[in-house]
C-alpha cells in the first residue's frame, strides 16, 4: 500500500509538470467548460419562462443550479482515456507501460487526478461567474450536501472503471472513434448532463433506470442542486456500488483477454 502511495505521488508530480506546459489550453478549456452550461441554462430558462415561469418543477434559477452542478460533477468524473487508447495500442506505446511493475491503470488515474487538481481554480472561477450571471438557486438540505462528496467519489470510480473498460476495445478494433462519439452522445443524454432526466420521454426514462449513466452525473448533481429524499439517496448509493462492482469485474475480464490479443507494433 505504501508502495502504491509513492507511485501515485510521483505520477502526480510528473503529470502536473507535464500539464503546466500547456497553459494556453487552460483558457480554451475555461471557455469550453463555461459555454455548455451557459447554453443549457439559457435554453431551459427560456422554456420555463415561456411556460409561465416553471416546467417540471424547475424555474430558471433551479435550472441554473442544476446545470452548474452537472458541470461540476462532470468535471470531477470526466475521463478521456478512450480517446487515447487506440493510439496507444496502434503505435506500440503500450509496451513500456506494461513493463512497469504496476498496473497501467494507476498511471491513468494519477494523470486524471493531476489534471483535475490543476483545473480546480478554473472550474471554481467558472462556477462563480455562472452562479452570478444566472442567479442560480441551490436548495440542498445539509444532509444531502453531506452525502455529495462520497457520491461524487463513487461516481468518479464508476465512470473511470467503465470508460477504461470501453477504452480497452481498442485491443480488438482499430477504428474506435465512431464508437467513442456514440458513447459520448449516449452519456450526454442519459447521464443527465444535457437535461434533467425527468424531461426525457417515458420509455427512455425507463431505460435509464437500468443503465449506469445517471449514477455518474445526475445523482451527485441532484444532491448538490436540489437535494434528494433519504430513500433516493440510499437507492443511489446502492446502485453506484453495484455498478462499480460489476464494472470492476468487467474491467478485469476485458483486461486479461485484451492483453492476450495485444501484439506490440513498433515502440
Amino acid at each position, binding site marked *: 500500500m505504501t508502495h502504491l502511495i509513492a507511485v501515485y505521488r510521483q505520477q502526480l508530480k510528473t503529470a502536473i509538470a507535464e500539464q503546466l506546459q500547456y497553459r*494556453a*489550453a487552460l*483558457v*480554451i478549456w475555461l*471557455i*469550453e467548460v463555461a*459555454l455548455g452550461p*451557459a*447554453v443549457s441554462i*439559457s*435554453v*431551459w430558462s*427560456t*422554456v420555463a419562462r*415561456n*411556460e409561465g415561469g416553471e*416546467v*417540471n418543477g424547475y424555474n430558471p434559477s433551479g435550472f441554473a443550479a442544476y446545470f452548474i452542478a452537472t458541470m461540476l460533477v462532470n468535471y470531477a468524473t470526466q475521463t478521456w482515456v478512450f480517446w487515447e487508447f487506440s493510439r496507444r495500442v496502434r503505435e506500440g506505446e503500450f509496451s513500456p507501460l506494461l513493463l512497469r511493475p504496476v498496473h497501467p491503470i494507476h498511471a491513468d488515474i494519477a494523470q486524471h487526478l493531476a489534471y483535475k487538481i490543476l483545473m480546480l481554480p478554473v472550474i471554481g472561477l467558472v462556477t462563480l461567474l455562472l452562479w452570478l*450571471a*444566472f442567479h442560480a438557486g441551490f436548495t440542498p438540505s445539509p444532509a444531502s450536501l453531506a452525502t455529495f462528496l462520497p457520491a461524487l467519489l463513487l461516481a468518479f470510480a464508476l465512470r473511470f472503471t467503465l470508460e477504461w473498460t470501453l477504452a480497452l476495445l481498442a485491443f480488438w478494433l482499430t*477504428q474506435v*472513434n*465512431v464508437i467513442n*462519439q*456514440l458513447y459520448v*452522445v449516449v452519456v*450526454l*443524454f442519459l447521464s443527465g448532463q*444535457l*437535461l434533467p432526466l425527468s*424531461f*426525457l*420521454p417515458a420509455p427512455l426514462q425507463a431505460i435509464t433506470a437500468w443503465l449506469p449513466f445517471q449514477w455518474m452525473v445526475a445523482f451527485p448533481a441532484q444532491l448538490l442542486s436540489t437535494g434528494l429524499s433519504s430513500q433516493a439517496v440510499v437507492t443511489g448509493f446502492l446502485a453506484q456500488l453495484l455498478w462499480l462492482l460489476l464494472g470492476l469485474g468487467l474491467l478485469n475480464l476485458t483486461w486479461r483477454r485484451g492483453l492476450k490479443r495485444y501484439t506490440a507494433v513498433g515502440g
Partner: protein
Amino acid sequence: MRTYLRLLWTFFRISILGELAYRASFWLQIAESLIDLGTALAFVSVVFSSTRALNGWSADELLTLIGVYFLIGGTINMIIMPGMNRLIEQVRQGTLDYVLTRPADAQLLVSIQQIDVWKLLDVVLGMALLVGAMLWHGGLPGPFQLLAFALTLLAGAVIIYSFVLFLATLSFWYVRMENILVIFESMYEAGRWPVDIYPGWLRAILTFVVPVAFAVTVPAEALTARLTWLVLAGTLLLAALALLASRLFWRFAIRYYSGASA
C-alpha cells in the same frame, strides 16, 4: 474572377483525389455527421416536448435554424478553417514564402489552399434539413425572403471568413494562434440556438466578439420572415466593412512578414 473560380475548382479536385485514397473515412465521416445531426434533432425534440415555442421560434423554425447552422458550419470547416490552420502553420515554419511567390493573389491562395472535402456532407445535410423544415412549415417562402436569405447567408459567411482571417493573420506576430481558432470553433456551437434566448452579455459576445449571430441567426431570421430591413442593411454593410478591414489588415501583415525559413 474566372481564373479564381478555376483555381478554387483545381484545389477542390486535388483534395478529392487525395481523399479518395481513404475510402473508409467516407463512412466514418457519414457516421460522425449523422450522429451530430441526430444529437441536435433529439435535443430539439426534447425541448419542444416541454414547450410549443422557444421565444417565439416554433419547432420547424428552429429546424430551419439548425439547417443554417450545419450549412454554414460545414462551409467553415470545409474551406475556411483548414486553410487558416495551414496558414498559421506556414507562418511558423516559414513556408509561406512559397505561397507569396506564386503569381496569384496570396490572400486568395491561402484561403482556398486546403479543403476538407468530407465536410461537404454537413453542407448537404444542412440543406436537406432546410428543405425539410420549410416543407413542414408549409411550402417555400416568398421570393423576397429567399433573396434576403441568400444575401444574409453570403454576408454571414463573409463576416465569419473575415473574422477568422483576421485571427489567423495575427499569427504573423503571435505564434500560438491555433488555440484562438479552437476557441472560435467551440463558441460556434452556441449558434445552434437563436441568439435571442441568451442573456444580454452572452448575446453581445456572440454578435460582436465572435460573430456567430450574423452567420446563423440572421439568415434563419430571413428565412422565417422576422428580419427587418434595418438588420438586413446593417448585416450587408458589416459584411462589406469586415471584408475590407480584414483585407487591409492582411496587406499590412504581409508587408511586416519577413520569412523565417530563408
